């Protein structure tokens, strides 16, 4: 196996990063360990739980499943991007609906639903649910999460 240490540059939440890591390292570990952005959670590292979902160039992607080498020049969004955006409609709706218990799955779900609403602001509840089938929640906060996303979608459409 070869370990090419190479230069990769990409944006995270609008900020430019240049990293020198093995290009095969999944983005998840680069975010969490090298950039200190750990609001993107480690759940399985195998692409089966959705906890590490981020947005890359407007697509919801499992960050454990993307080698960092593949995101050269791309733009990544993580939950940290919402820390300074208390008025983001989704973030607000999650708080208003108290959509979560332990919250471990939530940052991934937040990113998955953000990408979904960006693509289709008129998305139905059933389609939201189907789109989130790859995001596991064990506490059983699903109903509130769906309520929150539906409410956020409505507020985005109403204000458009």
């Amino acid at each position, binding site marked *: 196996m070869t370990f090419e240490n190479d230069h990769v540059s990409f944006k995270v939440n609008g900020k430019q990063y240049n990293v020198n890591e093995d290009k095969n390292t999944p983005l998840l570990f680069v975010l969490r360990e090298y950039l200190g952005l750990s609001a993107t*959670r*480690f759940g399985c590292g195998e692409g089966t*739980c959705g906890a590490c979902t981020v947005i890359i160039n407007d697509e919801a992607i499992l960050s454990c499943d993307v080698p960092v080498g593949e995101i050269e020049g791309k733009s990544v969004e993580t939950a940290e991007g919402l820390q300074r955006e208390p008025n983001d409609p989704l973030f607000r709706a999650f708080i208003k609906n108290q959509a979560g*218990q*332990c*919250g471990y799955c939530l940052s991934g779900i937040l990113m998955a639903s953000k990408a979904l609403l960006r693509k289709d602001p008129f998305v139905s509840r059933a389609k939201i649910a189907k789109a989130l089938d790859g995001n*596991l929640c064990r506490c*059983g906060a699903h109903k509130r999460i769906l309520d929150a996303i539906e409410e956020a979608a409505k507020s985005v459409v109403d204000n458009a």
Partner: protein
Amino acid sequence: MIPPSPLTNFPLLGHWVKLSEKNNLIFFSGRVELGQGNTTALVMMIADELDVLPSSIHLETARTDLTPNEGITAGSMSITIGGVALRWVASALKYQILEIASKQLKTQPSNLYVQSGCIYQKGKKTELYLSDTFYKIDFNRKIIDDVHLKSFEERQKSFPNINRIDLKSRLVDAPFIQDIAFDGMLYGAPVHPPSTYHQLVKIDLASLKDRPGVVKIVKNGSFLGIIANSFYHARNAAIWARSNGIWKSTLTDPVDHFQKLKCSNNVLDTIIESKDIRKNSGKWFETSVSRPFIYHGSIGPAAAIAKFEDEEILIYSHSQGVFQLRQAIANVLQKKEDQICIIHRPNSGCYGHNGADDAAFDAVLMAKSVPGKFLKVIWSRFDEFHTSPMGAAMVTKSRALLSSDKRVIAFDVEVNSTPHTNRPSSKIPNLRAASYLSKPIVSVRTPDVPLERGGGADRNASPSYDIDSLRVRKRIEYDTPYRTSALRSLGAYCNVIANETLFDKIAKELNVDPIKFRLEHVSDPRSKEILERLADERLSDTYNTSDDGTGWGLGFARYKGSGGYCGVMIKVNIDETVQVTDAISVCDVGEAISKDGIKNQIEGGIIQSISWTLKESVPVDGFSATAETWTDYPILKFSEIPNLRTILINRPAEKPLGAGEISQGPTGAAIVNAINNAIGIQVTELPITRDAIIAKLHSVT
């Protein structure tokens, strides 16, 4: 008034509250936040008693160097015991504050009161703030000497409900153990044998040491720990080790645990026996319900951080009982307890005795070889599924006797189960790796939870109805290669399903409405109200067996016989598989503190129970659990979530009871009953998958 039990060992104000250097009060609780939101309710209880805003309360939870030891946070007791203790603390504190203020203001304490952090006299704000009195508080005073609790009418006026205090941070920050980072921190990945009966036979340590990023290998008996400079490298090296090492089971023949549970010759312990149980005559009805092993399945795997320095150990853990974990680790390492400090930090949701304690011990074993360095262990999904304790497998056989006047007059319940309690303690470490170190500490059998603490396997084996004669017997099957321990509601889930489906079976045979039939066996007004409210809620098609594959079903129980009341009605639609389309619940947990938090717990319990009942079964091969990834253990998905409606009956004058474990049993029972009403068969071997229904249909025809 009897003081809450934690005040026995921690009677002084200073055990529960301290003054910081900046003149702020810091409250302590031995309870841990498991993701259920209990700290929000605890803060509400303190703030309400003290008449200050919840946002002004600083609460530190569960750390061995600061907080009282309140035992394990489990069994839905956080509010009932831990919260009520804090209410006493706040009351005693307020009494002292008003006493101090009265001297400064030269008046009687009874003329003063607190409002939003200020001291008031006869409706007017005085010049004194609460914080002006803090320097004179005597923290050595006994709480019970100063306590003057509010009456229930005076409570919950300013903030009947607040949002979770920690939800924002859980959404966009990094509060979990996995997320904590220290300078120079190393990462550890354990490689555990597939079961405690397996031994590590061969591993190429030299090649393992050469894997990228690996700093050190720790091998102790059959425990293998890989220390690396990043989690990514530690994890990859562990994957390599698992596929290149050889482990062998000391068992030669596979164990069929269900065969053991169903047909054991071991003695049954009699827990309850009415004198006349054998004398009654009438018609006996019976059922047998089995549930497989169930994973905790937290989305974030177990994790811990440990550091060894100058013979002292610092540990960050998401254990449910940091003091018990400290005792266990001290015992295994032959250390004094005060050489170990354990601080609780949150992790992914905790639903019982999961891998938290084991992961903490893994971290300790590895950190020992790199003194002075913080070492973080994060388990893999494989570790979660192979190493963490599982929820017990059970077979509950219930028999009910119907008298000639159509009353159920006797219940005879036989519970067969693998252990529900294998938690760490001083005498029995119950730490996974300890059982295969080079000097192994063999785990001895932990007795089941006694009935006075709610029971373990036999929890809710007594039906929640007025039954003249009752017999409950249980048999714990210790002899399997599988490690099982506490999972939310312990035996109650399976036992409530057995008893509630039996009730429905009898009602069906008598052609009586199942709610009406239950009401005929209930005198307790609170139980009655649950059932009556459910009757009001039900739709016109409820319970009529339809020919469109849909049906409603009911389940009801009072958790532990002394906890919260919960009734659940479920509608199913059976096509290729069973889909739960609607769930309506009515619950009563006495005085409701964090009302939305309670509803959230009930909803979560219902959804988790639907998942258990329809989908979940740990795959095993007679030697160990075999699931490796989520694809081997599907759980309920977003597209499978029913419409949910939760009705909370608030009883401010009653004792507050927990809500986290009251809905699982009633939900499971309601699903089985709904399926029976939809297609006329009672499937009682869980989970109720498509294959299980087909198998049952074949056995009936």
